[in-house]
């Protein structure tokens, strides 16, 4: 079952056909709540209200609080490579509305290279359900909120339908819960384009639990004055990252962790393989020339060159 939400494609798979409807309702409920809390493109979202009130405390609901905590965890765990305070940098670079509405090509823009405010500019007061951003700071939760939504949606659907296996994919970020299909694992196609047909050529890997996520600079690109832009911002410069990797796929205990590690790998560049190996995270890195590197226990026999 597929539909669109959060500005991307949603895929729901269950191992019990009778559970599909209940699972869909549960997933839709989670995604709608995440959209209302965490969207940067809805004027009525909690996140937009928080960004507008930078410099002073603003109330935040439990879901936005959890999403902010997840984003700050990702920032701390990746040494700041995945930073939620890239909101302004993304906006200046042209990613200022839902991606489908962004002009593919437009005139020149002025991008001043400077470090983003940094995740330390976000203060959370859990006891009073409020948050404060340092003046001039804008938060974007796009990277981690989508993965967190996949985790929450899979858990919610699993809770709704019982032991049936659940897979939720959000634009290529995948979380699984419950009992896997007959073979004991979920077969996942690793491709450059997550919307290709399932019988397309490409690596197929099997996961049993947790999540798998891909971050890519070939996704969500646009052009300004002939210069290619993309949505992965290097916190050190505030501009789209110039990485030796064009995509990174990681398997981890949750989709959130997989997403954070995958995005961090793109930003870290040459240091990514060692960082992933140290954490025992299986990953598939595709260089800008299409060469593939398997690290952290990614099955070498599955590696195929990516064209």
């Amino acid at each position, binding site marked *: 079952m597929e539909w669109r939400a959060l500005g991307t494609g949603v895929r729901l798979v269950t191992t019990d056909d009778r559970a599909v409807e209940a699972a869909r309702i549960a997933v839709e409920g989670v995604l709608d709540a995440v959209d209302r809390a965490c969207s940067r493109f809805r004027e009525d979202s909690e996140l937009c209200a928080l960004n507008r009130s930078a410099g002073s405390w603003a109330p935040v609901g439990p879901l936005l609080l959890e999403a902010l905590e997840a984003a700050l965890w990702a920032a701390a765990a990746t040494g700041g490579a995945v930073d939620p305070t890239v909101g302004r940098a993304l906006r200046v670079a042209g990613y200022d509305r839902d991606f489908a509405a962004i002009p593919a090509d437009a005139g020149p823009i002025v991008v001043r290279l400077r470090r983003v405010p940094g995740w330390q500019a976000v203060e959370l007061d859990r006891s009073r359900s409020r948050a404060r951003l340092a003046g001039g700071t804008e938060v974007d939760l796009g990277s981690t909120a989508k993965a967190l939504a996949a985790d929450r949606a899979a858990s919610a659907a699993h809770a709704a339908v019982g032991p049936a296996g659940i897979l939720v994919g959000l634009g290529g970020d995948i979380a699984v819960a419950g009992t896997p299909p007959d073979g004991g*694992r979920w077969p996942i196609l690793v491709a450059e384009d997550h919307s290709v047909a399932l019988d397309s050529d490409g690596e197929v890997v099997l996961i049993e639990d947790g999540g798998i996520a891909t971050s890519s600079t070939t996704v969500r690109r646009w052009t300004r004055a002939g210069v290619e832009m993309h949505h992965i911002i290097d916190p050190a410069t505030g501009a789209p990252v110039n990485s*030796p*990797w064009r995509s990174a796929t990681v398997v981890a205990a*949750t989709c959130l962790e997989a997403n954070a590690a995958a995005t961090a790998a793109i930003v870290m560049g040459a240091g990514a*393989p060692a960082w992933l190996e140290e*954490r025992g995270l299986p990953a598939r890195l*595709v260089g800008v020339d299409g060469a593939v590197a*398997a690290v952290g226990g990614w*099955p070498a026999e599955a*590696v195929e060159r990516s064209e």
Partner: protein
Amino acid sequence: MRSHSSGAPAARPVARPSQQDRKTQEREVVRRLTIGAGAAALGMAGYFTVASATSAPVAFGAPAGDAHPGALMGGDPLNDKVFIRKVHVAAPRPAAGGVVASAASRAQGGAAPVAGGAPQAQVAAASVASPQPPAATPRPTPVATTGGTKPVK
């Protein structure tokens, strides 16, 4: 003979503190100042400790659920005024079940992984040494795809 007497009253001798007394007084002043400054410093330390506990980025809170790893936070008292906050941020964890290649990939063999660093071209390993190559196993049909999206043309 000159007389020293005059109409003016004779000056009464002023009791000058001894050197020891002056030292005692100075010691007392220094002690008071030290105590005052120390107390102020402790007070400020307390203030900053409280401020750091309430106002500094509280980025390490445990998550509401177990969907993602949180961080452990603890405090060790240095004295009755100052606490040291210790924060441990959990690293991304590998999946318990790991990831394996599909049976078809295992049967076909594959390219050796790049050890790390800059990406290099892969060369598929040919299984010419095997007298009886494993039977071809049909690739399982994937149930989902992970990946990006091609740039819009």
